[in-house]
């Protein structure tokens, strides 16, 4: 029960802090949103701006599953898990995705400096960033729930947790009245990385034979540290090394206005990698044929060595430490295409569409949304949008206030769906994509 409480609190906390990410997509729809260059590096702001210490906070988490995938109300108020016999395997597995992912991407801006003359803009940022992705393949649940003959793809059981400091410099400028280009270069200083992946592991049940093809690796760098004892048991800890790697990433963007009032853009962000100096790297690799439970007969009594059999199975996933080295992890890349059309009858009203594809190992997602923005005055811009994608239906809303030099942005990419509560804490019943963006800067 204690474990459940912890999970509930963690999920609830993530839901409460909301979402939006380092790519607060609703921000694309806003007018006068000075941090639009994060989505489209070619965006040139009208004003210079500055923020310091908590000036921009992007908290994003995504799940393509929800409580509804695992908890099932029964008659009489009883709640059972999907592994309960009261829930059919077809119902339980039907509520799961092929890869059930949970990703968290938190970006806390430490300092931002943007210098713009309306045609050329230089930006510099320092961000603290924490990213975590976990993915569990449906086949694992299928194996546990149903069993039976077949091949179960255990690959994609994936956990990656990364903490880094992002130093970014960006340059955007208008080549012509219709065309702008921009780029941002990130120098990434990695503090910790834990990377676990069952990769191409497979479990095959055929007749009375059980075979396991294991291809599992575990790597740590920076603060994250693990060790493997003589019995291949993994023990987690921390190291004294706060710098575990370094990397580079690039954002590129192009904005083109083919006709008056229509602005299109395409961008790619976080195209890069980090090279980590490993604290630990280990593999569990090979083909294992499970020969069966040993049954001994002695002194008139037979003994089935079930524990021994389980130990044999564990051997398939016993880590063997490799020589320490380095590994690279790719940054979760975003590709975006957008178009915004300003109404000819009223410049303060615009409609826009944005398609975003996110590429991260074991946590790819897609999002498409359309929205409308109204900017009745320079000091105020508000937008709403609705969308659909990997995580289901979603909406977005944001408000940008420019009160003199003070630029306050408040917005969210929210999800549309049912919610319930666990011990009073709201929890999504289906998949979610939530971003919360809070920005406080100074424009001048």
């Amino acid at each position: 029960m204690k474990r459940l409480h912890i999970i509930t609190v963690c999920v609830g906390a993530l839901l409460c802090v909301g979402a939006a990410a380092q790519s607060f997509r609703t921000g694309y729809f806003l007018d006068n949103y000075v941090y639009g260059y994060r989505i489209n590096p070619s965006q040139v702001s009208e004003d210079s701006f500055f923020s310091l210490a908590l000036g921009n906070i992007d908290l994003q988490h995504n799940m393509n599953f929800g409580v509804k995938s695992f908890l099932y109300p029964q008659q009489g108020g009883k709640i059972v898990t999907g592994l309960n016999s009261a829930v059919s395997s077809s119902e339980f597995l039907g509520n799961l995705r092929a890869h059930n992912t949970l990703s968290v991407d938190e970006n806390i801006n430490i300092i931002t400096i943007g210098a713009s003359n309306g045609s050329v803009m230089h930006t510099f940022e320092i961000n603290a960033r924490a990213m975590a992705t976990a993915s569990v393949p449906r086949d694992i649940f299928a194996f546990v729930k149903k069993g039976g003959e077949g091949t179960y793809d255990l690959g994609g059981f994936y956990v990656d947790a990364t903490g880094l400091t992002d130093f970014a410099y960006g340059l955007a400028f208008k080549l012509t009245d219709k065309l702008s280009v921009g780029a941002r270069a990130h120098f990434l200083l990695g503090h910790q990385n834990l990377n676990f992946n069952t990769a191409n592991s497979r479990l095959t049940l055929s007749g009375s034979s059980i075979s396991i093809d294991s291809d599992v690796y575990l790597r740590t760098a920076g603060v994250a540290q693990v060790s493997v004892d003589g019995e291949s048991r993994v023990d987690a800890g921390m190291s004294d090394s706060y710098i575990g790697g370094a990397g580079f990433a690039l954002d590129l963007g192009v904005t083109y206005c083919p006709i008056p009032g229509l602005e299109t853009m395409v961008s790619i962000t976080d195209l890069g990698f980090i090279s980590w100096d490993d604290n630990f790297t280990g593999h569990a690799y090979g083909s294992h044929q499970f020969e069966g439970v040993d049954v001994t007969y002695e002194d008139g009594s037979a003994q089935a060595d079930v524990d021994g059999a389980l130990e044999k199975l564990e051997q398939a996933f016993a880590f063997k430490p490799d020589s320490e080295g380095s590994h690279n992890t790719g940054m979760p890349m975003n590709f975006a295409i957008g178009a915004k059309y300003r109404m000819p009858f009223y410049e303060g009203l615009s409609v826009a569409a944005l398609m975003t594809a996110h590429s991260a190992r074991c946590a790819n997602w897609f999002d498409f949304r359309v929205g409308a923005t109204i900017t009745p005055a320079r000091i105020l811009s508000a937008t709403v949008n609705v969308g659909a994608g990997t995580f289901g239906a979603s909406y977005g809303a944001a408000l940008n206030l420019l009160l003199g030099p003070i630029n306050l942005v408040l917005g969210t990419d929210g999800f549309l769906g049912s919610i319930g509560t666990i011990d009073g804490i709201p929890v999504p019943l289906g998949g979610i994509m939530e971003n919360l963006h809070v920005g406080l800067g100074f424009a001048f």
Partner: protein
Amino acid sequence: MTTPISATRHLLPALLALGGIALGVVSCVPDDRYDIRTDDIDLDVTVFEDGITVPISETLTVSLSEIMDKAGEELSDYIKTADDGTMILSYESSAQLENLTDDLDLSSVSSLAGFHADVSFTHQLSDFLDPSIIEHLPSSGTVHLNSDLVININQKANLKIEGISSEVVEIKELLLDNVMVEMSETFQGLPADAVSTDLTFTLPPFFEPNVITLKGMAVGGKISSEPVQLVKIAGVVPEDGAIIREVGVSGTVTVGSSNLDIATVRDGFNANLKVSIANSQGEIKISKATVVLAYDFEESTTVNLGFPEEFRDVEFDFYDPGVTLGIQTNLGIPMTADIDLVPVIAGVEGTPVSLKNVSLPYSASASRTESVLLYLGRYEASKPAGAEYHQADIGSLLKHLPDELKIVFKAHVLSSDTIIEADADYAVDVNYNLTMPLELGSDLEYVPDIEPIDLSSASSYMSGAAFTLSGKYLNTSPLGLEVTMELLDADKKLVPQEAGSGVFAIGAASSGEFSLQLSPTVSDKAIAWLKPVIKIVIKGKQPLKKTDYIELSDLAITVAGISVSPEELQ
């Protein structure tokens, strides 16, 4: 970019925008079915609903001898293998019929301690002088005999031989062991060197020799005969354990010319004759006796077979069981016997199998052992080489394996010569051999008690699950197996199963695949023990061979619907 306009003009759109945000916040639809308290969540799970098959690494090969071991450890001690590999349940033992030699006191025949003879004669002057002469003799002085004085002797006495066993009805011949007859005579009142003797001691005619003489001059008043060896006693019938016959001494004692003391003459004089029949130790020992006995005895010996108790309720029909009795003895007693084989189960004697008037071995010399081999069985062809066949229904004797087999001998000594040698050790030994080739006359069902398999290490994973034990079997034996797997909880109490589950059968001399379903009907009990209940069905007239075996291969357990509670996971 936007054109500055009044705040009033744009108030509505701004409010709409803010409303949009608010809409977003409230866009999530509450579902009160999911207002959950963690205490309400049932964390019991059931996994592997379609089953998971776990192979068992071993191929189980069980030979018939191992099955018999499992059936009863003691039983394996009795299983032997014939040259052709056929298994034979065999029990061997031996016993000695001590009552025969104890009850019949053979020493009473070989040693006649009470048999001796002391014969004494006394003579007076008046026996051979005229009394008037004696009256005229002076009161003292001497009388000179001018001529020989001849004293005629003819006396009788009884010789008694005692201590003969009452079972001895006739003595054909007793060879005496260095028994000598000696005679001696002493004289008192007669001149010491003037007496001569010519006497004959006559024994009963069944002695050989039966006439011993004493002849010669006395020296110093005494005369002794040369010892004469008494060879044997033959042809006499004892009465009441004794033989009483008359013996006699006859002949003359002659006193030659000499002076006789008158006073002595008046008082009389003595001549004492003594006959001794004994060996140097003063006994009459017999080296060999040929007698006729009138003797019957009964003796029983009990063989504790020690078959396992679990066989007690099993009804066997052994196809060709047999009992071999080997009797060896050096006794020279011709006997016949009635032999009863009595099964004893739990202290209760059953119906015996009897043999009548069987001739027992007879040895004419104690140094040689004679033997006879008796075979009691259903078929003469099964008798061992050299055995004397007696048809007997041993199968009925072993219908229920007895705890003990009591063998009763009722022996009768025949009225013919019995030879007993002195100092010989006599014994009657009986060897028993109970053989049961493991083939049956009809079908047999047997359920041995087999220890349950300990699954406690996996019990926490196995409550309420349905199991299937599957694999291939190869049975080269004539045993048919009907296997029922019982599920037991930690207290070894039976966990109920669905009807028909937990049973599979393996036919005799067959091969194939089997699948044993185990489907408990309750899910709240962990399965801690798996108890095989194996009914062995043996088809008749099929010999069991040691090389027969039952092999179970490609074994696997398929488990479906394992229920696990969170408490068990902790």
